[in-house]
């Protein structure tokens, strides 16, 4: 049996450049992404509370590592206690909706002697009524969106379920998008591992040794943090920090960027004009 070729031999310059560009995008996305998923989900539960005029709204996501549904974000006067609560994925209303994909609404739940009281009381708030809809797409269930206690009504209607489902769909799209970004690095790692394996891409990634993978990752990403990219990274980092900015600061920034962009456009168009003029000569 011939010895496996060194992985770097099998990657031509084009492939390396492609990998470099994937790695670059992944790095940028990773720097920008930190906290973005949570921010989007928080804005969705805040919008849900406002739309329904509800006491609380929350989103629980399935954590495969713990095999639990974990309440990640919540909004509303009665919502905060639930954050961090973890439940089994087949227990309670949230578990049922997560497991079956069937949305439902319940009211007068306090009449039920044992229904989820332990979990509900742990949050400091036991709802009179709730609607729970799955965060679901064709790739499966991600979690559950719950809305508790409409102030204007003792129960949720069928239309409320449908409206909550629209919000749940937004949340699902947001989570999928940010997970794609977050998974970019591991995707790159997996692809490289497959490329590095002696049998080519058909072998499982585990066929490559960590050392070969590390070598290819190093080759592919060698220039990313070099001097050429320094200015780009500085901008990326600053954009990421803008999440803390208040609306006034964002307006100011937008104005500054607008001025810079207009100036750049003017200069580019001047360059084009002078280029054309030279061409005529």
């Amino acid at each position, binding site marked *: 049996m011939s010895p496996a070729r060194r992985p770097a031999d099998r990657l031509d310059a084009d492939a390396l450049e492609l990998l470099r560009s994937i790695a670059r995008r992944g790095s940028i996305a990773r720097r920008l992404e930190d906290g973005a998923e949570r921010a989007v989900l928080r804005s969705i539960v805040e919008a849900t509370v406002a739309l329904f005029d509800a006491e609380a709204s929350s989103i629980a996501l399935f954590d495969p590592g713990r095999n639990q549904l974990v309440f990640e974000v919540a909004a509303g006067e009665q919502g905060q206690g639930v954050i961090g609560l973890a439940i089994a994925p*087949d227990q309670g209303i949230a578990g049922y909706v997560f*497991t*079956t994909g069937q949305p439902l609404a319940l009211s007068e739940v306090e009449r039920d002697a044992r229904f989820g009281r332990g979990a509900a009381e742990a949050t400091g708030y036991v709802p009179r009524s709730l609607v729970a809809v799955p965060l679901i797409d064709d790739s499966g269930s991600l979690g559950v969106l719950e809305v508790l206690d409409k102030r204007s009504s003792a129960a949720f209607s069928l239309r409320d379920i449908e409206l909550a489902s629209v919000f749940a769909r937004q949340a699902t799209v947001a989570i999928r998008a940010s997970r794609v970004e977050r998974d970019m690095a591991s995707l790159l790692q997996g692809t490289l591992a497959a490329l590095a394996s002696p049998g080519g891409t058909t072998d499982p990634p585990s066929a490559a040794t960590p050392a070969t993978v590390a070598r290819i990752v190093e080759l592919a990403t060698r220039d990313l943090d070099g001097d050429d990219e320094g200015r780009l990274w500085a901008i990326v980092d600053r954009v990421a920090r803008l999440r803390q900015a208040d609306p006034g600061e964002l307006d100011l920034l937008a104005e500054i960027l607008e001025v810079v962009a207009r100036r750049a456009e003017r200069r580019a168009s001047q360059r084009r004009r002078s280029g054309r003029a030279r061409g005529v000569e």
Partner: protein
Amino acid sequence: MSDSDLPAWSEPFVGDRRSSLLRSRPLGDLDRAAVFDGADGAGVTVAIIDSGVERDHPAVGGKLVRSVVIEFDEDDEPTVRPDSEAIDVVGHGTACAGIIHGLAPAADLVSVRVLGPDNKGKGQIFAAGLEWAIAEGATVANLSLSSRSEAMFPVFHDLADRAYFTNCLLVSAANNVQGASYPSLFASVVSVAAHDVADPWTWFYNPAPPVEFGAYGVDVEVAWKGGGHAVATGNSFAAPHIAGLAALIRGRYPEATPFEVKTILAATANQPG
């Protein structure tokens, strides 16, 4: 936001929109009394594929004759084991059982608990539960759940055919989330969405599938876990109303096929208006 943005299988069955269901029926109106008066579901077995059924709940009337739970064994194969305690881990299956028992008090009930604790395998658990219910000779199976897994499509398609050919009527809640879901959207399955008329004896037939029947599913007083009750809304509470009616039809006409039961349900449905 426009109505067209909403995942609204229930839409044809609610309020003014019901008028779209008005049609001239090929068989005319079948006399409801002739079909249902005196029918009690005796001799019929209804499987409730759900979160379990609480055997001692008063709403179940002592009619739970068998209870199993589907779980993965150590080889990750779904297996069936008896659930001697006959519990409901959520309350939902007991709610369905109570609705069915309320309509068909003499029907036997069998609980098939399929809420796998692992998200990844739940389609397999559900399919194994359905397969078991069909093999054990259930007359009607109530499915207030469905799977969206493409990988499970052929499995559920095969099971839906098997049920049809062995004379087991599958009654499934329409899934109100956009996109395909199995087996609720298969032609041989009775797919049910909720209407808002507070009456278990009001149901509508929708000539524009995939969702063919609308039944009581808004603010339904249901049995719940721990001997309790709740008021519930959702397609999953509409399905057991149709399952209960199907049990009555099969009790009266034990030889009726799924096709005939569906026809009788359509011919005895309320005309809108």
